[in-house]
């Protein structure tokens, strides 16, 4: 460690600390403060209501928290398990030395990773278009003129659509992580198991998979957390819709999208800033707990390995 004057340390830290205090911390604290008030767009008041907003959010029967959280968790489970399956299969295929043109396949399959996600989300939105989108057009070639999947107007199909887009965007990350781990699995183990008569499925289950776990676990947790707070990709395609009934959020209103729509508000309607802040703080507590758990889990994994 270097020994320096305290003022030098201060100078090195100052720019970062000021920025963090002003732009990161202040909004968080302001949101926290707002969650204890009754502020809305119309009343403009900041009266202290203690935990009233939290009580309403957590215990009121018309609270949408559970619905939105459930929808988001469903999305996380669907996405992450499919990332894992698709990433694993592509990595296994790319690790097979008998396949010709490995370099070509490797570059081609990682292309979605290099494209700017927000633009490709808009492109996907067009691909899903009912009348003019090529996916339904291809379907019409095979199934006749009346074919058409209501990708963005039916709740279930909209959900599937945003899962598909997310897989497209995210599987290359898993492919790279798993491929890297696969290449460190000693070939001798496989040969030995083959000689002992193990089938390829048995070899995968008892040799490859356990050796991949240390690489897969952190990647899975990381992508579960980022999928939980997914915004751009989904919002650009569905805006959180389709909305099927007036008293329920849309079928792809995951936590961030739900909140964003509340903040933007409908034209001429009141915006309940305090309630939105309460929702934000609740989500922050959930996310913070998850991140903390993931981190301590990762640490334990590391210690177990060492």
């Amino acid at each position, binding site marked *: *460690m*270097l020994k320096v004057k*305290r003022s030098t*340390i201060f100078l090195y*830290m100052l*720019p*970062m*600390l000021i*920025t*963090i205090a*002003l*732009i*990161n911390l*202040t909004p*968080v604290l*302001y*949101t926290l403060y*707002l969650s204890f008030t009754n502020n809305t767009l119309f009343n403009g008041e900041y009266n202290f209501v203690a935990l009233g907003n939290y009580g309403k959010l957590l215990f009121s029967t018309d609270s949408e928290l559970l619905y939105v959280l459930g929808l988001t968790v469903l999305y996380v489970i669907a996405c992450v398990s499919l990332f894992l399956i*698709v990433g694993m*299969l*592509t990595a296994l*295929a790319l690790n*097979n030395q*008998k*396949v010709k043109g490995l370099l070509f396949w490797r570059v081609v399959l990682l*292309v979605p990773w*290099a*494209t*700017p*996600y*927000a*633009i*490709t989300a*808009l*492109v*996907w939105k*067009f*691909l899903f278009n009912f009348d*003019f989108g*090529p996916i339904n*057009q291809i379907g*019409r070639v095979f199934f006749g003129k009346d074919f058409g999947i209501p990708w963005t107007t039916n709740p279930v199909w909209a959900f599937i659509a945003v899962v598909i887009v997310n897989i*497209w965007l995210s599987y290359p990350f898993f492919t790279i992580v798993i491929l890297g781990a696969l290449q460190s699995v000693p070939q*001798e183990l496989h*040969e030995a198991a083959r*000689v002992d008569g193990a089938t390829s499925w048995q070899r995968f289950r008892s040799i490859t998979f356990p050796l991949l776990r240390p690489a897969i676990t952190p990647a899975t947790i990381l992508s579960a957390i980022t999928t939980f*707070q997914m*915004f*751009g990709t989904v919002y*650009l395609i569905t805006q959180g819709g389709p909305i099927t009934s007036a008293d329920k959020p849309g079928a792809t209103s995951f936590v*961030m999208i739900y909140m*964003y729509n509340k*903040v933007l508000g409908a034209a001429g309607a009141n915006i309940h*800033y305090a309630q*939105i802040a309460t929702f*934000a703080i609740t*989500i*922050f507590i959930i*996310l*913070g707990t998850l991140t903390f758990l993931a981190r301590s889990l990762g640490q334990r994994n590391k210690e177990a390995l060492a």
Partner: protein
Amino acid sequence: MSDQSIKRTLHASSGAIPAVGQSIKIQKREEVKTGVLRRRLQSGLGLSVIYLFLIVMTIFALFPIYYVVQASLAGGQNLYTTDLHLLPAHPTLDNYVYAFTQEPILAWLGNTFLVSGLATAIGLVFSMTGAYALSRFRFKGREVTLNLLLALQAFPGLLAITAYYYLLQYLNLLNTAPLLGLALVHAAGALVFSCWNIKGYFDTLPVELEQAALIDGATHTQAFWRVTLPLAIPALAASALFIFVGGWSEFALANYILNSNDTGSNLTFMLGLYRLQGDFRTPWGYFAATSVIISLPLTILFLYAQRFFKSGLTIGSVKG
């Protein structure tokens, strides 16, 4: 195949053939032969399944990109039909000409470069000095700062979006320089990750290098700029790219605080594209051409910078 496993294989196969009668030997050999044949057939079948899977995945991976490129070349004519067109009948660059002449695409690109570039410069400089102090010095409040950074990392900026609005209003940036405001928010948001990443990398560099420089008469500032920073270029490049790409694709905050003027020339291109695509009076070919123009530089940058990503991000994160 290693020597040992070859030996083991040989051993196993010789053990399978008992040295008793000739007929038994032949029968066994036949069995071994059909076994080999079956295995070869199986692996051939397995291989074609793998190829099939790779082809399907390639179509999945490339189709959106292929479609948008061909649509950008198709002119306006055959996009709004319900029949399938996978090849433009009369390829033309009309859409590109339109994008450059009729849409304020250069203004969008300029705005976006300004936001991303400023955010990258601020975020990188502030985080690398902070990361250096956290990595090299021991002082009161160091643990607190590290824990604070950790907690902030779990807080997606989007949650406090109303607060950002008021903050920028309070700083008088909302109406005078909203792009600068956007850049500040991006920089601060990326600062936390960037600081962790760079600190992790600094931790792997031996402190003896700087100590040697100090003994040779360099000041602390010189040791930092001339010794440590050049060695940390992979981590710096990875962080810079991370911040830049984040600012490039940001949509939520920009959509909330930027109000379009008459021509829309004050927008970042993500917002411009969003409006272009949402408006079904504009032919989709224009949108396609515009998105190709905008994606191209970023994709090339990303592919080029990937090697920095590998060493810069992994080393930093493993130690962090």
